[in-house]
């Protein structure tokens, strides 16, 4: 336990010092919330029956989970793997699971802070009420964080080099974020995009978040959406178990 907290502290320090990564994974969802909130926050989105800012708040939390727990985690783990840092850590008495656990815990802390800031911005700049069911919201966020982190670790096995990591992972998560309706409602999308959106985990995570935040739903209200997110998480976990390595892949 002492080792775990020792490592979590180090991971926090490493995250916040890496300004570029912190910008893309932590601040960008917040900045997009401010920009798009200013653009259409006061419009009424008929197909969703909510105001733009209400819609966007849950969407940016969804974008945040993909940026922080999936993309940010995956890129930093590939970079560390290729730099030999993971291999080096393996030579110490620190148990491998304590290391991975600490990296995940640190990532979740970052994401929860991010979600809290988005909710506060919503409250004070766009007069979106603080959600009533905070425990249900927390449960949804943790579910999403865990599943997207599993996918993040899973995709590291498909990326061979440090240089390629941002390109590959951004190519996956940015289109996913847009198709999944984090910025705009997918209800206006053409059929084929809707069909893709329906199988993507971020669509369902965002729906769960929106239901809890805007419609006071319980965490467990939409079992099928939970199942889709969890299924993707399980796929990620299998990928991580099979593909995650401590040794550099290139060279």
């Amino acid at each position, binding site marked *: 336990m002492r080792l775990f907290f*020792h490592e979590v502290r180090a991971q926090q320090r*490493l995250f916040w010092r890496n300004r570029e990564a912190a910008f893309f994974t932590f601040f960008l969802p917040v900045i997009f919330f401010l920009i798009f909130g200013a653009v259409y926050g006061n419009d009424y989105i008929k197909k969703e029956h909510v105001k733009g800012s209400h819609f966007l708040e849950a969407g940016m939390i969804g974008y945040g989970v993909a940026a922080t727990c999936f993309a940010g985690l995956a890129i930093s783990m590939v970079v560390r793997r290729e*730099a030999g*840092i993971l*291999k080096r850590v393996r*030579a110490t*008495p620190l148990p491998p699971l304590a290391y991975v656990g600490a990296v995940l815990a640190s990532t979740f802390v970052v994401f929860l802070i991010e979600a809290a800031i988005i909710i506060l911005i919503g409250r004070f700049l766009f007069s979106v009420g603080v959600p009533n069911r905070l425990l249900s919201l927390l449960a949804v966020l943790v579910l999403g964080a865990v599943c997207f982190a599993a996918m993040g670790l899973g995709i590291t096995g498909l990326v061979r080099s440090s240089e390629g990591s941002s390109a590959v992972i951004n190519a996956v998560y940015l289109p996913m974020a847009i198709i999944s309706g984090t910025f705009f409602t997918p209800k206006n999308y053409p059929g084929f995009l809707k069909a893709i959106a329906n199988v993507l985990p971020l669509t369902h995570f965002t729906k769960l978040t929106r239901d809890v935040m805007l419609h006071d739903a319980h965490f467990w209200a939409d079992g099928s959406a939970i199942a889709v997110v969890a299924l993707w998480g399980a796929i990620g976990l299998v990928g991580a178990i099979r593909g995650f390595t401590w040794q550099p892949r290139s060279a």
Partner: protein
Amino acid sequence: MSAVRVRGLRKRYGTHEAVRGIDFDIRAGEVFGLLGPNGAGKTTTVEILEGYRDRDGGEVEVLGEDPQRAGGPWRERVGVVLQSSSLYPLLTVRESLRLFGGYYARPRDAAEVIEIVGLGEKADDYVRTLSGGQKRRLDLGLALVGNPELIFLDEPTTGFDPGARRTAWETIRNLRSLGTTILLTTHYLDEAEQLADRVAVLRDGEIVREGSPAELTGGSGETEIRYRLNGDDVVERTADPTLRLNELTGAALARGERLEGLEVRRPTLEEIYLELTGE
């Protein structure tokens, strides 16, 4: 007592046999050099001893345990410097040492390690601002911070300028005087000669010669005699230099001549190494 015991070690990658049945022992407290050209199997051997790779055959004991199965308590006693630098660029030198020191039950103080590896002036700078040589010294520091009994150094000075190599050598000698057992791989002869108590020369996955640097040079038997005769350079090799010299000088004196440019020398480790490794 042996710190490391290797018998009949084998490792293959696909059809390529990287290590073909090698034996060696490293005594506690000695510096053992594993010498050989790139691709001879040095890193494969070291990574098996470090527990990174599983062997295909033979026996390996490191500090009394099989590295393939050894756990945390064993890792407490072993320090590792990988072939390429492996550091977090956004920690300072001191933070890196504290982070890694925290993984061990009885770590050395970060300040003490900074002293040993000579990074005092850089202690509070980010790792990414260090030069290549300074990064390697921090790698060495991270290997020391857990206060290990045995350290693996995989090519610790490759790419150093001569000054930086001397500094690193000094550090490694300091470690030895603290009683640490060291396994050093290198493809630099002078490094092995300077640092190692014993050397094994590896070629194509086999040990072709083993002994102290002095034994390796002494063991080749042949002595080289050079002189000039009638304006031509003559080079002879002989197993009995006393007799041959007596003959040569006797004959020259009998002719009333002097052997110009007479030189008698043992082959250097470098020459023996080049001969052994076929380079």
